[in-house]
């Protein structure tokens, strides 16, 4: 007698596993900057401390990701393969940051149509023909461009701070804004860390900095007097 075929287990991503939190992107005078921390969280466990979430694509673009890190690494390898074949053609025509943004939008949208999403919110930053580019894509396929972008928790905590700072900034000022935003994010977000990474894209090209620690201050008196915690003063 024939046995009944056993149903295959679902292999679609129904929730993210190892995740990264907010990515921040801002345009400044003469370039774009991306910043994020390097923490890979496994649920509420701080699982991986130094995961790089910024990926250079071609000569003018950086992609940053929050959400599922294995999905992002898959996306990265896809983009790398695409950019090597792009340069192998050697036809003097390369993918622009906008092209990459649109491409990622299509990839994400097609995966959502299969109910098998790549669980990420991506930020694409680039500089081409003297103009900065900043765009976002999410797991549904939502796509937009803006001067200031922040994903996941950063959207609530950092976006207002970044809007206040504006985009009329020097590179150094932009860096200060990003560091400060990630510090504030760290104070309120249990899934972020103080080890951060900053990438800039400008006419000089792409520069992805090494991870470094940002300072925090816990010296406020309320923190010193733990007996008050949870009580009305």
């Amino acid at each position, binding site marked *: 007698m024939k046995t009944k075929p056993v149903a295959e287990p679902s292999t679609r991503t129904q*929730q993210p596993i190892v995740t990264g939190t907010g990515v921040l992107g801002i345009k400044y005078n003469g370039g774009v900057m991306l910043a994020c921390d390097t923490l890979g969280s496994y649920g509420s466990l701080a699982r991986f401390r130094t995961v790089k979430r910024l990926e250079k694509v071609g000569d003018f673009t950086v992609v940053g990701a929050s959400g599922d890190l294995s999905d992002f690494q898959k996306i990265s390898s896809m983009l790398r393969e695409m950019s090597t074949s792009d340069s192998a053609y050697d036809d003097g025509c390369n993918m622009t940051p906008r092209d990459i943004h649109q491409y990622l*939008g299509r990839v994400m949208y097609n995966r959502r149509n299969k109910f098998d999403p790549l669980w990420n919110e991506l930020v694409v930053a680039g500089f081409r023909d003297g103009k900065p580019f900043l765009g976002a894509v*999410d797991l549904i396929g939502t796509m937009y461009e803006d001067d200031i972008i922040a994903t996941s928790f950063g959207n609530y905590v950092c976006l207002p701070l970044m809007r206040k700072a504006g985009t009329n900034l020097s590179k150094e000022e932009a860096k200060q804004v990003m560091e400060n935003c990630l510090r504030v994010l760290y104070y309120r977000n249990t899934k972020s860390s103080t080890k951060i990474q900053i990438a800039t894209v400008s006419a000089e090209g792409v520069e992805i900095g090494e991870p470094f620690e940002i300072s925090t201050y816990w010296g406020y008196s309320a923190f010193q007097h733990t007996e008050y915690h949870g009580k009305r003063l």
Partner: protein
Amino acid sequence: MQAPQLPTSQVEQPKESRFSPYQNNGGTCLALAGADFCIIAADSRLSLGYSILSRNTPKVAQLTTKTCIASSGCNADMVTLQKYLKFKIQMYLHQHGKEMSTPAVAQMLATTLYHRRFFPYYTFNIVGGLDQNGEGCVFSYDAIGCFERLKYTVSGSGHALIEPFLDNLVAYKNTDNKPTIERSCDETLELVKDIFSSAGERDIYTGDFVDIYIIDKNGTRYEQFPLKKD
């Protein structure tokens, strides 16, 4: 008689969280047709929940020299749908050597939406432009392709706020003040701006800017009108 008490399990029911392929990004679209012109407009705010993702993401796209489309709802579906329409319209141009007429675009949109009847594009569309006779025309849709030709329409998050006023101010319903001359293009434009300013006061998903396309025999003109950013 009371229903017998069923034994309830002590074990908690498994919780299920499923991936949702839809998002509501809000936004309001509006179109008004005159005798020889058409105005089509939408705000440029992109929202998600209580967040504003972007203040300047256009919802209106020009499809031909005398046809525009405005869509609100799920941004991902919107972007895809508009890309697809632009592609089909370009192919039509290549194959037939002439531009698609506004009613043809309107019919094609309905067909396109109905093709996804069982996994719909979560979009609320309006097509506006001039028909083959040069008259202003507006087409209104639901998400799965039911459509009709109208003189005016509004869709999206501000729909319920605006529609009754258009009934009164454009179709002159429930009023005795029916003017003898039709509203001019410039007057209509002012009306559109007032409507968006008012909708922006009450609807949190409408704001930032209005992209306005004015289509008449001379072609298409674009105008941006600022709204409150709150």
